[in-house]
């Protein structure tokens, strides 16, 4: 018995939203680096302005994995019908937002990420993310019939340069 409905299959490819970040600050870069290297010290490239300016980057660049949208985005344009109906941590959120019935599975897990990087994010950059519905698939796993759904997002900076392209995988069971 499949958890992938016709409506879900038809939704693949839908552009779901566009989000713009606040300008990335030196403290965003420093705190991220402190957190991901803790309890070790992060590279001085991420915390010391003099070191950053002397580097090939000529200034602060962020760790590639920085999330400039954390806590609050400067703007978010939802291109999906039901953005207002999303409930924090509800496994059916991807479908709820699209205005279709979700598979009603109880648990969800971060299934993984597949990412391609473009240019580095820098202090002062404003990043725009455009997200779209990716492919659904299923597989029997140790926790039962597992549903894999993908969300594709493309990040560009204020110069239109590609920063990152991500396929995020959500597992539900």
């Amino acid at each position, binding site marked *: 018995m499949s958890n992938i409905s016709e409506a879900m299959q038809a939704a693949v490819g839908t552009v779901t939203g566009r989000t713009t970040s606040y300008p990335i600050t030196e403290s965003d870069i*420093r705190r991220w680096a402190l957190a991901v290297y803790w309890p070790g010290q992060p590279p001085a490239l991420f915390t010391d302005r003099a070191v950053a300016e002397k580097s090939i980057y000529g200034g602060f660049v962020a760790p590639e994995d920085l999330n400039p949208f954390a806590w609050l985005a400067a703007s978010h344009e939802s291109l999906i019908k039901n953005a207002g109906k999303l409930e924090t941590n509800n496994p059916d959120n991807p479908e709820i937002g699209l205005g279709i019935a979700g598979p009603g599975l109880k648990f969800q897990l971060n299934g993984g990420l597949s990412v391609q990087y473009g240019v580095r994010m820098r202090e002062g950059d404003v990043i725009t993310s455009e997200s779209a519905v990716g492919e659904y698939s299923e597989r029997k796993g140790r926790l039962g019939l597992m549903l894999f759904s993908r969300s594709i997002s493309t990040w560009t900076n204020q110069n239109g340069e590609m920063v990152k392209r991500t396929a995020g995988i959500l597992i539900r069971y």
Partner: protein
Amino acid sequence: MPDTYMVPEVLAAIGRECSRTTSYPITASDIRKWALAVYWPEMPPQKFIDAEYASEDFDPFAWGPQKYESLLPEDDGSVIYRHGINEDALGIPKWDFIVGLNGGMDCQYGVRMHVGDVITDVKSVGQWSERPGKNGLMLMTRHVSVWTNQRGEEVKRTINTGISY
């Protein structure tokens, strides 16, 4: 437990400036994220989201200072004391306290903190006193922390009360 904590070393420490801590320049993101955290799950006032200025309780030293210096000749500043007061360097005897409590904070606010400000915190020994309690003789410390911005304007003056017994 001693008969008194008010020994000559303690009395001699009163008023001594112990440390100077300098923050990184405050960013809009610092002000915004602080406000989001302290108002969660509600949204904070728009002025904090826009980082017009920081909320009074904002701490620009969170996650670490840019610089920490000792102001005591007896202390080389190689160890950062969280509360800025190096009691060993002051010669304060090591009493066997069971517990140290935060007894409270008393703040007076001056000018607001803004994006770009660099805040300097000078900590000094305020007052010591003692009081008998049900757990024995209690040492009360009142240490002073004065924050100024890069223009020398006073941002905040705090008296932190500690209770040890």
